[in-house]
């Protein structure tokens, strides 16, 4: 498509690519660690910086302001979080909000609690944020919350206004409270306030507001068609249930492109390979227990592992862009 994009003026192309942001950060990092980085040459430094951005390896241990600065950074961080901690999902452990936040802080020291809380509220559908959550539930909610943070914040304001009984025409500008006060005299919906607060708001009304928000947020919002589809399924919807449905929607997941589908989110081919190797060692070792059935069982597990490994390897090639970040967790100290 590059021949078509020649119509885009240079400044816009530069702005859209967010390259200046990365260059800025690269130079800042260079200045902070100049002794280290000038050892092996400037060109190589920039080559490695941009290669790591391209391969989504650049967000590990960076500050939160860097992570949230671009959509690519957000998606990369979600992916890193997934790769680092998917084992938790496999073990079936349920963790609390604070525990998830601790995990996030291992990767990003100043990761804010509010964002994790919002994600937890999405999963738990109410304010009881001390309940436990599964890894796969949490990670999709977390992904939506981080990737579309600004859009969701505006949506929440709109929702609260609708809940408070304001007519849709007044809630289009959430930040302009004076406009809302002026126009709140406009006729209300036929439903009563109490009902609204329990069940949520009319989906048709919310749908209109969502359209307006999408126009404002241009490309950093979930797909319009997906949101419409979800809203068409019920007459009324609450904020949390709407978001939860969004987080589980496969198209939205794919358009973000950071995580595999729910069926594959717990698959970890590298860990499988490590386990297979261990099993192989145990079964081959002469000092292992010699009961035939035990060895036979282990060998069978190893045989069964191979076709699975091939499938995972193929899926991994499709899903993952770079296979070397498993080491960085432990070695980046």
């Amino acid at each position: 498509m590059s021949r078509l994009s020649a119509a885009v003026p240079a400044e816009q192309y530069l702005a859209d690519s967010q390259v200046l942001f990365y260059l800025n950060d690269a130079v800042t990092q260079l200045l902070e660690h100049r002794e280290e980085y000038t050892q092996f040459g400037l060109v190589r430094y920039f080559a490695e910086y941009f290669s790591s951005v391209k391969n989504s390896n650049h967000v590990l241990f960076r500050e939160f302001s860097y992570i949230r600065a671009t959509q690519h950074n957000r998606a990369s961080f979600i992916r890193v979080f997934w790769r680092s901690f998917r084992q938790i999902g496999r073990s079936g452990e349920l963790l609390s909000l604070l525990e998830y936040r601790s995990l996030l802080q291992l990767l990003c020291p100043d990761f804010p609690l509010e964002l994790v809380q919002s994600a937890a509220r999405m999963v738990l559908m109410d304010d009881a944020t001390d309940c436990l959550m599964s890894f796969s539930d949490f990670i999709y909610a977390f992904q939506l919350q981080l990737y579309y943070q600004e859009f969701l914040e505006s949506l929440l304001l709109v929702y609260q206004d609708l809940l408070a009984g304001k007519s849709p025409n007044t809630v289009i500008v959430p930040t302009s409270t004076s406009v809302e006060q002026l126009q709140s005299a406009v006729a209300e919906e036929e439903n009563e306030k109490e009902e609204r607060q329990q069940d949520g708001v009319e989906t048709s009304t919310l749908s209109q507001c969502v359209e307006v928000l999408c126009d404002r947020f241009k490309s950093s919002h979930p797909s319009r068609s997906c949101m419409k589809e979800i809203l068409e399924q019920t007459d009324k919807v609450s904020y949390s249930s709407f978001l939860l449905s969004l987080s589980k929607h496969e198209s939205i997941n794919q358009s973000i492109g950071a995580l595999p589908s729910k069926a594959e989110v717990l698959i970890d081919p590298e860990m499988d390979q490590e386990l297979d190797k261990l099993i192989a060692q145990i079964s081959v070792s002469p000092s292992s227990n010699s009961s035939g059935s035990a060895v036979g069982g282990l060998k069978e597990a190893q045989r069964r592992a191979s076709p699975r490994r091939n499938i995972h390897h193929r899926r991994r090639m499709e899903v993952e862009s770079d296979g070397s970040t498993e080491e960085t967790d432990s070695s980046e100290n």
Partner: protein
Amino acid sequence: MSDKEKRRSAAIPSGMPAGKAVKPDSDREFLAQAGVGDLLLGAILKMVEARSDDPVGFLADHFCNLASVTDGGTAECGDEEPQNSGPNSAGALEQQRLNRALWHLRLAHHSQRSAFSNNVRVAYDLLDVTGCQGQAGEAPGGSDGPCSGGPMGAGGGGVRGGLYTQTLQCLCSEGGVPASTSAPLLQRLCCQDHEAVPYDVFRYSVLTCAVFSDYIRQAQRLYAEVCCSDEGPVSRALCLTVLGTLKEALETSQGCDANRSLNTNTKSNNTKARRYLQASARISPHNLAQAMVGAQTRGPGGNMDAKEFENAAAELFIARVKLVS
């Protein structure tokens, strides 16, 4: 990234900072001394010129290419020695040349004919090195694009078949074409490993692969448009109709052997132009919509998924590719 860590950990114990005895006080001085401004300016200019779909990837490749040129500068001068010192270093050198050639080929889109031709020439000269040629056609410190590779290129006997095939494979896969889809195309274009590939054939094949990648991407997009995302695979009838229209369009434009592109005969250019117009009319939205409406009323049952559609579209294209003998 593990490379970087190794270097970091190796550099720190050694302790001796290279170069400057006096550390500059201000950041600006440091950056000015290091020449960061010029380096970045050059990179940005190249990037804006290329207008790649992946600007960050472009920059990564640009700097890597630059780094390998400046690092490999010393290696290139002693070209004969590494060649004799075993298969490993020769293989690595070849890989480096392949990477650089690919980088050149990615710089311009194939529709930018003159820029693309120049880049193909530079890439060919790079790959054409058969031992004692030294730096074939590339200015040190980054490519300035077109240098007349004539005198240097004539020295080599041609690009080695194996290297040529590798180049094509990389082009297709980088263009987003899965290996299974590009395999039949490559079969038509490939040469034996030991054969020497002349420039014409090289150019033809590179152009074909570039066009093919675009074509497949368009086919994928076409499928995505036709398919409503959540309804699963698209009805077979619809897909067959769309493929039929594609085929007609290709046949129309094929009229004067569109693959032989650079003959500058003006009369044939006019005929070509007319045929392209006819072809594009056939795949105009209006025409396509009519065909699709027709398809929905009749047609065989069953669905066609994205992969099958892609393969069928690929087949249409490949059938028109000249076999390289």
